[in-house]
C-alpha cells in the first residue's frame, strides 16, 4: 500500500508574465503626425520637463496641444482629458508622461477611444504606484506594490495578489484574492 504523504503537489502551469516594457529614455516625437497631444500627468517635475521637451519638438513640426492633469481619477481632470481627446483629429500622435498609475490609466482611456498603438508614445517617470484591477469587484486601486506583491482593494477590502499581468485594455495589473481558499 502506497504511503500517503499529504496533499498532491500543486500543478502550476508555465507562467508567462506580461509586464509593461517602458522605455528607459523618453521616446521621440513621431514626425509623421499632423498634430500632437502632449499629456503631462501627476504634476511631478520629471513629467513636466519631459513634456516641455516634447512640446518644443512637436510644436515646431505641427499644431500641438498640451494637457496638464494632476490626477486622472479626479472627475474634473478626467473630463478635461476626454475633452482633449474629443477635439483631437485622426492624424494626431499622443505623448503621455507621468507616474505608472496615471500613464497606464490614461493609455487605457485613449485605447477605449480607438487609439492605435502606433499613435501612442509613453514615458513613465515613477514606477512606485501600480493600477491594480480587482477580479472580484472590478475596481482599480492605486497601490504602492510590485507585481507579485499584495495590496488592499479599495472597492471590496480583499487582500489582493497582484499578478504579473498588465492588461492594456484595463490599464491595470490583474489581481485576485490572495487569501482565497484559506479558512
Amino acid at each position, binding site marked *: 500500500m502506497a504511503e500517503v504523504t499529504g496533499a498532491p503537489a500543486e500543478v502550476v502551469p508555465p507562467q508567462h508574465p506580461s509586464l509593461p516594457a517602458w522605455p528607459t529614455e523618453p521616446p521621440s516625437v513621431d514626425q*509623421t*503626425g*499632423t*498634430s500632437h497631444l502632449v499629456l503631462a500627468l501627476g504634476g511631478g517635475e520629471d513629467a513636466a520637463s519631459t513634456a516641455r521637451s516634447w512640446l518644443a519638438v512637436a510644436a515646431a513640426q*505641427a499644431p500641438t496641444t498640451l494637457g496638464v492633469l494632476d490626477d486622472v481619477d479626479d472627475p474634473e481632470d478626467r473630463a478635461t482629458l476626454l475633452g482633449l*481627446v*474629443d477635439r*483631437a*483629429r*485622426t*492624424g*494626431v*500622435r499622443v505623448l503621455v508622461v507621468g507616474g505608472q498609475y496615471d500613464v497606464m490609466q490614461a493609455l487605457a482611456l485613449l485605447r477605449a*477611444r*480607438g*487609439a*492605435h498603438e*502606433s*499613435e501612442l508614445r509613453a514615458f513613465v517617470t515613477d514606477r512606485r504606484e501600480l493600477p491594480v484591477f480587482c477580479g472580484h469587484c472590478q475596481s482599480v486601486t492605486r497601490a504602492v506594490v510590485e507585481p507579485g506583491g499584495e495590496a488592499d482593494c479599495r472597492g471590496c477590502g480583499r487582500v489582493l495578489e497582484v499578478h504579473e499581468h498588465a492588461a492594456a485594455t484595463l490599464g491595470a495589473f490583474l489581481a485576485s484574492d490572495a487569501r482565497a481558499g484559506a479558512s
Partner: protein
Amino acid sequence: MSAVVSSTAPVQRAEAYVGHQHPGYALGRRRLHVVGLERLTDRVLHVELADPSGRPLAAFQPGSHLVVEAGEGRRNAYSLTGDGFNPATYAISVLRLDGGSAWLHRTLEVGGELEVEGPRSMFPAAHDQQHALLVAGGIGVTPVLSHARAAVRAGRSATVLYSYRPGHAAHLDDLHELAGRPGSRVRVVEATDVKQTRVSLTGLLADQPFGTHAYACGPSGLLEAYEEAAELAGWPASRVHLERFVAPELDPGDPFTATVASTGRRVEVPSGTSLLEGLLAAGVPVGYLCKQGVCGECRLPVRAAAALDHRDVVLTAEERQSGAHVMACVSRGRDIELDL
C-alpha cells in the same frame, strides 16, 4: 417540382460547428430567385435575390461580396449593398462592362434563378471604429452603401464622400435617404470631377474625429489619391482600408519552378503563365475566382522560397514580409515550395 427544390436546397457549409445558425444559413454554391430588378442608371442594374423557399439568408459583415454566375463559366464578385443584418434578400448592383456583367444585364429576369456563392467578407468594418469615413468612386459606392447602412443601424456616425460623373450616380438617392433620417449621423459629400474629389479627400482626411477608420472603393486613380492623402494627413496604415475592383496591369514575369511539398512534384511555370495556371495544368487542385489578385481565393501556403514577388492587392505589408502565403493567380517568385 420537388426534384428541383431538392437540387436547389442550400448546401450547409462543411463545418464542425454551425452553432445556432438558422436553417437557411448557407454560404456554398446554391441557386437563389431573382425577386427584383431595377435600372439605377443606363449602365447599372440593381438585382435582388431571395431564397427559393422563403427562408432567411445568411447574415454578413458590411462590405461583403457575393460571387454570382455570369455566363459561359464565368463567376463575378459583387458587393452586397445591404447592411448584412438578418437579410431576407441579397442585393447587388451590376455595372455593365464586357463579359459577365453584360451577360447578367442581358439574361436576368424577375422570377428567374441565379447561382451564387458566399457572402464573403474581405472589406469589413474595424471593431474599434469610432467614426467611419467612407469614400466611393463610381460603382465603388456599393460596399460604401453597405457600410453606411450598417453604421445607421448601429447608431454610429459616418461621413460619405461619393465621387461620380454627373448622370452616373447609382445609389446617391439611397445615401441621401440615410443621411436624411431623423437622428441620422450620416453626412454625404459629393464630388463630380477629379479636382473636386482630391480637394474633398484632403479636407475630409484632415478633419475626422480621433479613432476614425477610412474605407474606400473605386477606380485605382481614386484609391491612389486616397492613400496618398491619408498618409499626408498622418493617418496610420491601420486606419486606411480599401477594396479594389480593377487589378493593376502586370508584366508576364520570369519563368520559375514551384514544388508541391507533399508529393515532391515540380511544376515549371513559364513566363506569361501564372502559378495558378501552371498548377491547374499539372493537375494540382487550387480554388480560384478572380484571377486578378483581388479576391484572395487562391491563397496558398508557402513553406520556403528563394524569392517571392507579391503582385496581389490582398496581402498586407506584414503578410508579404512573412512570406507565408502567395496568391497563385498573379504572384511569382523563384523556387517556391508550396505547403500543399
